[in-house]
């Protein structure tokens, strides 16, 4: 078994800012908000009536027959995968499909449809509820759909660790390549909006009734979003041999368990600092190597100061020399796909030297006193970037990307 290195050769994105990579990235750089009124269901009974919805479903490029069977999550996952695969320049007719794996983060999947089944079951009984509406409920549906559409025959996995799902999927994907199990992995994640997730975060009083304001003193919680971010990971040697454009290197990841609380972050910051240190260790990095942190930055009262402490604990003095920012201020919290869409943004940040801002930032918070790139994007020389993902259940993952 060889210690092989992993590079990113393809990117795809669908988000509330646009249905492809270019429009999503342009929106992030412009500091544009994807947050607006909820349209997917009647939100009148909820405290919060805002979300970062994808306004028009993209065309995933499948047959009408298959399209009828897809969930909203499948549609955006397939669309982003199609873009990423095209971007990679892989000639799939010449690739060995048994060496191509699919590893995604996911959770909500077809829940929006399933919720219709649950309501019909309550109101009309078993005979009045259409059972096919639950078929797309398993979180692994999009992973299987991508494998089915392109005929990939390698390993598949769907990571379901709430808000760190997609970042963990990147880690597993890299391990499959490093260990020699696969040569190419279609990875990242897809997750969409549903009444249950909105209701759940509202029940926890974790949502802001206004657009979320990460790291701002007046922040009151998150805004839920939906997105798919897909990355094509490839073993570096073969990517270079085929002349692929290498967008970035995947340097490594840290993965730990807080073992603290199902919904609350560990307040001292030490738990997530341990994840960041683990990422640095497994990526062969020192704190001084890090130029940017794409923060988890949910805008909840508890997360942002705890994450600020974590970054300080893990990076020491370097934390005050670099910028951090929260894509969630524009994309909302995309839950199981948050790590994926933020990884896509992190790769673009390294490529372009433009750091997306943290928007809706009004008043500094002394407990969140790092440079959060308020409101306006900034140019910076980014060689190495981390992306933080911390989840319900204390599932924490931090990934590291480096310049190609």
């Amino acid at each position, binding site marked *: 078994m060889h210690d092989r290195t992993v590079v990113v050769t393809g990117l795809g994105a669908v988000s509330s800012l646009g249905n492809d990579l270019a429009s999503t990235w342009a929106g992030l750089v412009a500091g544009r908000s994807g947050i607006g009124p909820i349209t997917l269901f009647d939100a009148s009974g909820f405290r919060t009536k805002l979300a970062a919805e994808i306004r028009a479903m993209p065309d995933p490029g499948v047959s009408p027959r298959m399209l009828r069977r897809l969930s909203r999550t499948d549609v955006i996952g397939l669309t982003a995968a199609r873009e990423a695969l095209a971007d990679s320049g892989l000639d799939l007719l010449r690739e060995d499909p048994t060496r191509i794996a699919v590893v995604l983060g*996911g959770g909500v999947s077809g829940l929006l449809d399933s919720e219709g089944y649950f309501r019909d079951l309550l109101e009309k009984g078993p005979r009045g509820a259409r059972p096919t509406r639950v078929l797309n409920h398993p979180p692994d549906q999009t992973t299987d759909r991508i494998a089915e559409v392109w005929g990939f025959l390698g*390993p598949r996995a769907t990571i379901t660790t709430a808000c760190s799902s997609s970042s963990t999927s990147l880690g597993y994907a890299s391990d*499959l390549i490093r260990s020699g199990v696969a040569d190419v992995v279609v990875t990242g994640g897809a997750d969409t909006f549903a009444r249950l997730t909105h209701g759940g975060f509202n029940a926890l009083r974790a949502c802001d009734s206004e657009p979320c304001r990460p790291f701002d003193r007046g922040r009151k919680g998150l805004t839920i979003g939906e997105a798919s971010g897909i990355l094509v990971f490839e073993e570096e040697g073969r990517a270079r041999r085929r002349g692929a454009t290498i967008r970035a290197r995947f340097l490594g990841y840290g993965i*730990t368990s807080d073992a603290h609380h199902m919904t609350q972050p560990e307040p001292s910051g030490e738990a997530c600092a341990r994840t960041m240190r683990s990422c640095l260790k497994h990526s062969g990095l020192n704190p001084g190597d890090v130029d940017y942190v794409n923060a988890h930055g949910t805008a909840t009262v508890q997360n942002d100061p705890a994450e600020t402490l974590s970054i300080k604990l893990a990076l020491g003095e370097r934390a005050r020399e670099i910028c951090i920012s929260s894509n969630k201020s524009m994309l909302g919290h995309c839950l199981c796909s948050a790590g994926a869409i933020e990884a896509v943004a992190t790769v673009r940040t390294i490529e372009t030297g433009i750091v997306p801002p943290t928007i809706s930032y009004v008043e500094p918070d002394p407990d969140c006193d790092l440079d959060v790139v308020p409101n306006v994007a900034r140019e910076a020389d980014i060689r190495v970037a981390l992306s933080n993902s911390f989840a319900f259940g204390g599932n924490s993952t931090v990934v590291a990307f480096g310049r190609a």
Partner: protein
Amino acid sequence: MREIREILVTGAASVSPLGRDLETAAARLAAGDSAIAEIPVSEGGERKGAAFAARIGAFTTEPEMPRAKARRLDRASQFAVVAVTRCLAEAGWTMAGNEEETGILLGTGSAGASPLVDFERQMSVESPDSASPFLFPYTVANAPASIAAIELRIKGPNVTITQKDPAGLNALFYGRLLVADARAKAIVVGAVDEWNLTYQLAYERLGVLRTPTKPGYVLSEGCSVILLEDGASARARGAHPWARLAGAASAGFQVSPQQRRARPEDVATTIRAALADAGLEPSRVGLVHSSANGVPWVDAAEDAALADVFGPALRVERVKLRVGENPCSGALQLALAARALREEPGLGAALVNVLGAGGNQIAVVLAAP
């Protein structure tokens, strides 16, 4: 990443419809018992024909966790806490001082189902604002692994995987890479599931479950786990290994996500890949835990593949026909295979093969340590 040298199975535990512990499950299987029973009319109303499930029934977390504390947890998390606690005890693994050297990876197909349905009911029948904030955290599929991690202070990698029926074996597949990468010295791998009436009714109406007149699978629940340990570390602490993780292979077939379909040649290819990964000839395998779950065409494809790889005179256990289907059943087979190698080292090696909907297959080879 370090070369994968030796990874040992040093413990196992199970909470299944066949019993609250692995020994009971093994004894009942040996006695020919089945956990599959008819669902009474009081649950889900009258049906055209009988419906079946493999359920655990009344369950207590004691002595592993006080009942008062367990009341706050969902059913799947209760299963996980008990199984993981027992597994670590079986392995003689001490958590104190090893928190960051211990990880947990669970597969699941249904964890969170009941809290999710209850939460939906509260939002619909009562009002969105009346839904319980205490219920919502258990609607996420990673709740059982995370609750077990919180209870036992597991601070290494913590992952939940869903990938149809082989999800428990998928946890093992990733877990061995994490051990090889020195991210933890010991990782609990397996799967957890809970049975839920709402999903049962949906699958009944989809016509995929077994009835008195139609073949099909039966839904199951429970949590089964094994402890994977870095070989050098396990031997240094004087652990008594049950088995060695010799090899594994994971593959997909090109079918739609809901379909249960497999070609014998594809199934055989994955099994051969697992044997090759283990460096073992088919003749070294003394026991196969088959994926057979009552779906005739898939079971037949697997039978043909096993005959092709191993020949006709093979000892094959078809546990899912008596304990039902879900990722937790594949994990139970892992635990049973490890136990068989502990009890009968002469078996040489045991293969666990799991096929799932959507063309997912993973085969794992355990060998005598």
